[in-house]
């Protein structure tokens, strides 16, 4: 820590902090035009000049990149500094057009504000005009380089934070501008960070051009409804219509958003949204009233309960429900329907529930997202974060860029992050855990382990060690066809690092393999002593916005809210007395078993809330058969999708932009969801559960509002005990929150494990697939432009990613005589085929095609089975 004074205020800051950061701590504002806390200090604008007196000498220096030192006396404002800043502003104005009255950025322009603040009047020199064409060619973003003040923030955020480097300074000199190579339109991640960070109007979102002044727009702060990272969103609205989305710099995500967060909200305005309930009459779905539809649902389920018993009903929820809705859904299914058969998202929570929880205690990520940037080593186990969780990818880019962290990638495809400094280990899809176990074997052989942890905190270590005997790095490497040195190197880098994090991403395409990945990662972290510390641990990123909350609220076949098991009498008793009903006393069926049960006749009624199994679950044929065979299918969704078309009753649900509640992100952060002023379509899931339970004769089930549910959650779920809506500000709260004075914790297990000790189960038998086949492997991929099948309803994301493109490597493409944009025909053993456009990509390895699964039209899930996440296919030019 260093201590200095800023304008007479004494402050202590961490060693290495800049004078500017010290001033911010002291509450002194220093003007800047080229600084952002996400970026490396640059010193281009010279507006942050301050006078520093140190060792008897006074000097003027930029505050943004000079480090604070002990005993400095900093003056942020003096006549000389004001005059220096005024001259800097005049020089900027020399070539900046003064068309502020017609500029879209007026009122939201840093330059304008500073020119006003420093009272810059006439320029003492001639103005110089620059002429650049207006570039409207790119999606979402407009370039008007006449307004550029060359602060470089756009170029830097693209390189330092996004790791994309899509724009650069070109034609350097008098006519320098920011553009791409050969001024082509953007072909990037379309995160919009360049437009968001631009202090003037040079790079702007097209949606804001001609919309109105930023200060005329009203603001609603909510949480993003796409992936599990829980970025805070600020919806900017005009005339009850969202026109733009950005994020506050003070939010947990520091103002960074990805393409889905910033531009994906148009799904809520889609013409495919359902507004009125539908009931099947004479085989045709017809529009009806809410009363009729709800009583049809109530009588339908009551009939099945009476005829076949409650165990003939299966319910599938969604990880996009709010915590309150998930809690109410759990209660509705377990008490009103009376069945234990409840699940969500194709059981795609294996890494948490079957991986981390049995080993460490909680099915939750151990640390927080913002700690990744300070980790010295980052191990990605089957996590293509660029495509699945772009904001977490930014953290890895920052760690490996400015902090020189090593990035170890274990994956079946090359990812953007495998190009960073570190190690890339190629594995067969879904067998990433084999490499992690062999890394464990290596560090145990070399004794680079946390011996005290093994001796004092771990149960079952001897058996675990015994089970690792097959995982000799040489053996695993030979079977995979890689060099064993890679595994040695990765293991040693990870184990010797002072701080190291393991990142795993979940998703429907990883449902089959992730439990082992989670177990292996947890074991590696514990044995090498990387748990319970800052910038360590295992992070598992969920695919959907409330992936963590859905587990917290027990949307699985065996759980109750708060991770209590149905089989555990004590946990069951707690909720039986709270809900005043008997609960099922054994675990129910998971999503696969529910669908197979429906096909075989064991399940008669299916209740689908926000879930679209026909388009997103593996094995489309089975799902379609199951929904046809079931007597009574209720779909509660925003859209009239493929699943809704097969339903008996369709209830329109409202979107996350139209309801209240909270989401829990993959870093355990509980954040508020607030409704925008948009007109509400349909009813919220909570309202529907309320109405249905009253119709089905359970009147005690009456929640007045989501806040009411949250009160019940905080009473019944131990680690939510201190949560209430008035405590959930912009930063939210990270559970465990034990009482109303507890501010939550950044990382878990700092003070020991919930069960006292870590339990290591034995590693599974080594079982690697043969790679002799001459056929192509179809790898279901995820693209950063879409999330599940929800985003394909919004027109904005379809603009940049309109159709699934099969990605292939260049040698396969030239072998088949293909060029970018050609069509290929993909056929499996059963003769099912689909036609796709092909695109060259660095991602797939030889004999792989990577196809995103988001597009219902391609019916990709016909090719994958529940137990075979990969399909062998024949690829030919169409």
């Amino acid at each position, binding site marked *: 820590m260093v201590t200095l004074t800023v304008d007479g205020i004494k402050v202590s800051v961490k060693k290495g902090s800049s004078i500017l950061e010290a001033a911010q701590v002291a509450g002194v504002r220093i003007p800047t035009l080229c600084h952002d806390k996400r970026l490396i200090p640059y010193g281009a604008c010279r507006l942050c000049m301050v006078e520093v007196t140190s060792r008897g000498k006074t000097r003027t220096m930029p505050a943004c990149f000079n480090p604070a030192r002990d005993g400095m006396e900093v003056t942020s404002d003096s006549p000389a500094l004001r005059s220096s800043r005024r001259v800097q502003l005049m020089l900027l104005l020399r070539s900046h057009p003064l068309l502020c009255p017609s500029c879209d950025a007026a009122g939201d322009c840093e330059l304008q504000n500073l020119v006003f603040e420093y009272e810059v009047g006439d320029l003492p020199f001639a103005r110089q005009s620059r*002429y650049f064409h207006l570039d409207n060619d790119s999606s979402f973003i407009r370039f008007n380089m006449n307004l550029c003040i060359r602060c470089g923030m756009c170029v830097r955020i693209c390189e330092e934070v996004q790791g994309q480097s899509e724009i*650069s300074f070109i034609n350097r000199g008098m006519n320098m501008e920011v553009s791409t190579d050969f001024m082509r339109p953007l072909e990037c991640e379309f995160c919009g960070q360049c437009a968001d960070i631009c202090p003037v109007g040079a790079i702007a979102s097209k949606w804001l051009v001609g919309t109105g002044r930023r200060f005329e727009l009203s603001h609603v702060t909510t949480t993003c409804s796409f992936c599990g990272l829980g970025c805070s969103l600020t919806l900017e609205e005009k005339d009850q219509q969202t026109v733009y989305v950005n994020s506050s710099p003070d939010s947990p995500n520091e103002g960074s958003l990805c393409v889905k967060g910033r531009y994906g909200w148009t799904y809520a305005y889609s013409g495919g949204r359902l507004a009125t309930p539908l009931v099947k009459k004479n085989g045709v779905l017809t529009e009806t009233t809410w009363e009729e539809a709800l009583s049809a649902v109530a009588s339908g389920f009551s009939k099945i309960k009476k005829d076949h018993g409650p165990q003939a009903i299966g319910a599938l929820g969604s990880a996009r429900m709010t915590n309150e809705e998930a809690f109410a859904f759990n209660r509705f299914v377990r008490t009103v329907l009376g069945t234990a058969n409840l699940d969500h998202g194709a059981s795609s929570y294996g890494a948490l529930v079957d991986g981390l929880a049995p080993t460490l205690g909680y099915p939750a990520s151990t640390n927080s997202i913002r700690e990744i940037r300070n980790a010295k080593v980052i191990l990605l186990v089957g996590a293509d974060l660029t495509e699945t969780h772009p904001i977490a990818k930014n953290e890895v880019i920052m760690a490996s860029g400015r902090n020189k962290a090593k990035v170890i990638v274990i994956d079946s495809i090359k990812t953007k992050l495998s190009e960073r400094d570190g190690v890339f280990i190629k594995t067969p899809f879904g067998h990433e855990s084999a490499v992690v176990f062999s890394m464990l074997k290596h560090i145990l052989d070399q004794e680079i382990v946390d011996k005290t942890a093994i001796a004092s905190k771990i149960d079952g270590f001897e058996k675990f060690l015994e089970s690792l005997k097959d995982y000799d790095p040489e053996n695993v490497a030979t079977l995979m066809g890689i060099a064993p040195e890679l595994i040695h190197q990765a293991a040693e880098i990870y184990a010797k690092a002072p701080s190291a994090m393991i990142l795993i991403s979940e998703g429907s395409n990883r449902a089959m393999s992730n439990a082992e990945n989670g177990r292996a990662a947890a074991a590696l972290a514990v044995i090498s002593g990387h748990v319970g510390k800052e910038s360590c641990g295992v992070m598992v990123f969920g695919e959907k916005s409330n992936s963590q909350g859905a587990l917290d609220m027990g949307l699985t076949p065996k759980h109750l809210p708060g991770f209590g098991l149905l089989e555990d009498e004590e946990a069951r008793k707690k909720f039986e007395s709270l809900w005043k009903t008997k609960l099922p006393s054994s675990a129910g069926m998971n999503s696969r078993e529910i669908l197979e049960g429906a096909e075989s006749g064991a399940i008669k009624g299916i209740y689908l809330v926000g879930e679209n199994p026909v388009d997103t679950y593996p094995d489309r044929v089975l799902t379609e058969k199951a929904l046809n065979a079931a007597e009574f299918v209720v779909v509660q969704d925003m859209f009239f999708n493929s699943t809704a078309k097969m339903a008996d009753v369709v209830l329109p649900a409202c979107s996350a932009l139209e309801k209240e509640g909270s989401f829990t992100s993959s870093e355990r952060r509980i954040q508020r969801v607030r409704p925008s002023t948009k007109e509400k379509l349909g009813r919220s899931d909570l309202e529907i559960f309320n109405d249905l339970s009253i119709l089905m004769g359970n009147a005690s089930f009456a929640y007045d509002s989501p806040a009411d549910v949250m009160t019940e959650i905080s009473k019944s779920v131990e680690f939510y005990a201190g949560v209430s809506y008035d405590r959930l500000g912009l930063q939210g709260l990270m559970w465990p929150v034990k009482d109303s004075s507890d501010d939550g914790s950044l990382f878990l297990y700092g003070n020991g494990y919930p069960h006292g000790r870590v339990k290591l189960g034995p590693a599974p038998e080594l079982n690697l697939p043969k790679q002799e086949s001459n056929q192509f492997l179809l790898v279901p991929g995820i693209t950063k432009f879409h999330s599940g099948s929800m985003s394909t309803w919004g027109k904005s994301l379809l603009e940049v990613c309109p159709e699934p493109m099969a990605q292939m490597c260049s040698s396969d493409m030239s072998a088949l005589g293909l060029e970018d944009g050609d069509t290929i025909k993909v056929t499996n053993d059963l003769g099912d085929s689909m036609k796709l456009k092909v695109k060259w990509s660095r991602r797939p390895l030889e004999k792989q095609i990577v196809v995103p699964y988001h597009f219902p039209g391609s019916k990709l899930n016909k090719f994958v089975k529940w137990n075979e996440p990969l399909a062998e296919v024949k690829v030919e030019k169409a």
Partner: protein
Amino acid sequence: MQERDALLKKKVVPSVEVIPPERLKLLDEIIDKYAGSTQNLIPALKEAQELFGYLPMEVQRKLSIGMNIPAPHIYGVVTFYSFFTITPRGRHTIRLCLGTACYVKGSKEILENIIKDVGINVGETSEDGRFTLEAVRCLGACGLAPVMMIGEDTHGNIHPPKTISILDGYQ
């Protein structure tokens, strides 16, 4: 002044000439030699330009992928150094002086005549591959203003309407 600057700031049109794949393969040697460090970009670009005569989009893209340097970054370097060019060179390079003395004596009209009659602006090459036009700041012959060099020949005291007849001597 503004008019002149406006003349200089036309949007760069990407070169469309296709380099046959077998010629593009020649780049592999340069990539093998220089890949691994961004500091090697300028020597790599220099050798690539010696190989092809200019640095079109395909060459820059291939270098970008091979050396793992973002393509916009490479383009930024190429457009900074006047040594590098992204359009093919003509048979004759016209170096027209736009320095103070020549400008006052009428090199702007010479430039306009070239734009009008040959159809090329500064930095461009005529479609028939005959001329490449470059603007220079001084040729060290201000006494002969306005001055223009074509290849190795220096022409001084040019009467602007005579520009085309001088160019006619170079086919």
